[in-house]
């Protein structure tokens, strides 16, 4: 077994960079703090690539299964002999893959931010938060046990909160950061309950023990039943609630569009490529338990994923803020990943969906980060998020234009770009498991192509908007990450995921199924063509279509009134019937008792304060009379 102890440095370097920048960053020149953050992440990225190479190729015997191993572990909290919480580093195919994804995207975002955030007064603060986020996310994927994962899960939530609210003088950003934090925190309650139920029934937090097909979790915990489902199923559903919150699955998705108030590189890193896929990672991490112990929970995952992807795709067609379109697109693509996990079985070719989900996670991280960074370059150039303020930018921003086009083609699933391969695998897996889910995903594939090209034409073609000052291409420090990510988007599809990341660690064979691949490409092309007709030149067609589907358009444009539903539930029900009585109880009973005690004390004090008159002779008189009375008592009475 090769030695992987050095992987400890991968999360620790960003952590120390965070401390360094957070504590001393205000004394540095902005460029210096940016370079420190970037180089810290660069070293972490190099270590991650080394680990990936060593794990997948150099240190691996060809044909053997990939095993999971603990590179490092200490007991962190020793509560009792039975209840000990460990901290450590787990190396297995999905964690190594996530290492590569996180460090790559994070490094690109760091480089890009040096250009994007230039001149911002909080430059060092931004980079220290980015490092904190990278540390938390790396800690999350490397966790050896579910409790450690939970700790880092919350840290990721905090850093997301900090970065969404980065422009803290902007009320909408502050509101968005609070919304994101509260919604995900609320979902994390489910995660915590799930953890407690799962570990109570299995007696362990450890992932290796939990996911062992012959271990206690899968063989025993399925026994006890509650309301027609086993306790294991319930606990996994609760854990999935946490995952759904972080991954913006319906109905916890409402925070994701608002999270776009953060700086665009943050959206690329956290709300597209890494943090929002934490839920997918969580399900993938516990996948053997889901697949072998609780298939019902897996069905929930599949249907939530499928519904979210359709729901988000419909909304994405009507939004005008380019970052929000991308946000809903992210939600839709994560729905794909969830669905792929949900329809997958365990082991061999049965595990196609598992492989496809991780494959799509990988490629999606590349092209969605690229899309966001491209959108950032556009926003940088025209100082607006609204698609209506853009148009005809292809002449002004040539590099952004080409890379954005590549990303759009990738997400639309055009071969031989990477999105085609991963999406195709998901469709195949869905087709073999459930025709209904397959149909949903098939429609979503078309919608995806349509709304992405609506966005593309809206930004780069369409009407020639008159700009106050001519938009200019972003500096090299911003365009180079775009080119690197474009390269990744094009070629990531050729990685042999079937050999590397599978549900049971063993490689399996499957060829492209042309009966599914060809129609899926076709519907993508159809989506692109419709978008071309409607949006390449300024036409009246979009308004006509919107007019015909008036109600649907209005509903989708208002995001199906989900925000309003949440507001109704919180304001009208929770606030009125729970919070108001509680506040009354607090003010009148709890505070009342305390105020009463204080009032009595004060009354007593006022009535006796005359004793402290400050008049010396009064004191002396009392003293002397007291003495005389005592003397008389002792002389005559005792």
């Amino acid at each position, binding site marked *: 077994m090769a030695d992987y102890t050095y992987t400890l440095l991968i999360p620790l370097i960003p952590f120390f960079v965070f401390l360094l920048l957070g504590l001393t960053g205000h004394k540095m020149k902005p460029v210096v703090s940016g370079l420190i953050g970037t180089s810290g992440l660069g070293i972490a990225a190099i270590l991650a690539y080394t680990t990936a190479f060593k794990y997948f190729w150099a240190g691996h015997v060809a044909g053997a299964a990939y095993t999971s191993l603990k590179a490092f572990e200490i007991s962190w909290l020793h509560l009792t002999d039975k209840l000990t919480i460990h901290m450590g580093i787990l190396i297995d195919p999905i964690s190594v893959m996530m290492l590569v994804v996180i460090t790559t995207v994070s490094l690109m975002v760091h480089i890009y931010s040096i250009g994007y955030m230039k001149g911002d007064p909080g430059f060092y603060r931004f980079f220290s938060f980015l490092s904190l986020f990278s540390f938390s996310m790396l800690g999350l994927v490397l966790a050896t046990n579910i409790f450690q994962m939970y700790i880092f899960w919350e840290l990721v939530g905090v850093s997301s909160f900090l970065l969404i609210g980065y422009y803290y003088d902007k009320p909408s950003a502050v509101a968005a950061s609070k919304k994101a934090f509260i919604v995900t925190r609320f979902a994390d309650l489910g995660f915590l309950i799930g953890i407690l139920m799962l570990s109570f029934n299995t007696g362990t937090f450890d992932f290796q023990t939990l996911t062992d097909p012959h271990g206690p979790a899968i063989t025993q915990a399925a026994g006890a039943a509650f309301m027609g489902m086993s306790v294991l199923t319930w606990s996994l559903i609760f854990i999935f609630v946490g995952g759904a919150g972080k991954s913006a699955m319906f109905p916890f998705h409402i925070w994701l569009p608002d999270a776009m108030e953060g700086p665009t590189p943050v959206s690329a890193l956290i709300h597209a490529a890494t943090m929002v896929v934490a839920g997918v990672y969580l399900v993938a991490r516990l996948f053997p338990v889901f697949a072998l112990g609780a298939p019902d929970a897996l069905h929930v995952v599949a249907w939530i994923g499928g519904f979210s992807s359709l729901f988000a795709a419909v909304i994405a067609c009507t939004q005008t803020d380019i970052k929000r379109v991308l946000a809903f697109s992210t939600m839709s693509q994560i729905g794909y990943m969830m669905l792929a996990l949900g329809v997958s079985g365990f082991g061999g070719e049965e595990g196609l969906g598992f492989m496809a989900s991780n494959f799509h996670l990988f490629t999606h991280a590349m092209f969605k980060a690229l899309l966001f960074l491209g959108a950032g370059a556009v926003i940088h150039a025209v100082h607006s998020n609204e698609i209506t303020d853009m148009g005809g930018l292809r002449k002004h921003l040539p590099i952004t234009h080409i890379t954005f086009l590549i990303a759009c083609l990738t997400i639309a699933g055009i071969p031989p770009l990477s999105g085609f391969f991963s999406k195709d695998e998901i469709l195949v897996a869905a087709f073999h498991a459930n025709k209904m889910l397959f149909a949903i995903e098939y429609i979503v594939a078309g919608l995806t192509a349509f709304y992405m090209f609506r966005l593309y034409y809206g930004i780069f073609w369409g009407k020639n908007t008159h700009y106050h000052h001519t938009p200019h291409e972003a500096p090299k420090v911003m365009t180079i990450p775009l080119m690197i990510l474009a390269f990744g988007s094009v070629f990531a599809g050729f990685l042999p995921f079937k050999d590397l990341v599978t549900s049971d660690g063993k490689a399996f064979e499957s060829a492209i199924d042309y009966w599914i691949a060809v129609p899926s490409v076709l519907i993508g092309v159809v989506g692109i063509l419709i978008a071309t007709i409607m949006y390449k030149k300024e036409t009246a067609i979009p308004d006509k279509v919107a007019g015909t589907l008036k109600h649907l358009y209005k509903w989708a444009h208002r995001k199906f009134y989900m925000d309003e539903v949440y507001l109704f539930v919180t304001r009208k029900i929770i606030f009125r019937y729970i919070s108001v009585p509680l506040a009354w109880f607090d003010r009148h009973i709890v505070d009342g008792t305390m105020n009463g005690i204080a009032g009595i004390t004060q009354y007593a004090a006022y009535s006796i*304060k005359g004793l402290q*008159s*400050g008049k*010396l*002779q009064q004191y*002396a*008189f009392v003293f*002397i009379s007291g003495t005389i009375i005592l003397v008389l008592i002792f002389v005559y009475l005792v």
Partner: protein
Amino acid sequence: MIQNIPLSYYLVISTLMFFIGIYGFLTRRNLITMLMSVELILNSVNINFVAFNRYLYPQQLEGHFFMLIVIAVAAAEAAVAIAIIINIYRNFKSIDVENVDEMKY
């Protein structure tokens, strides 16, 4: 000669002095007068010391020495008290005890 005067005479004198001192201390508003009253109290005690020593233990001198110590302490006390009174006067422009009640409540 001294044998003709009973001890109780001395005690009556000292009691009178003591209560005159107490009365002065409680009723006078002037700090200097109050200080003088305190001196009266102390001196009444001194008379008691000397008288008891002379009448009960004529061979010993503890009472006399104790009286001397009290006089010394009284002198020191007067010095400190007058210093305090001067400072009070500087702060309050008055040595009326009624005005010196900043520390009440």
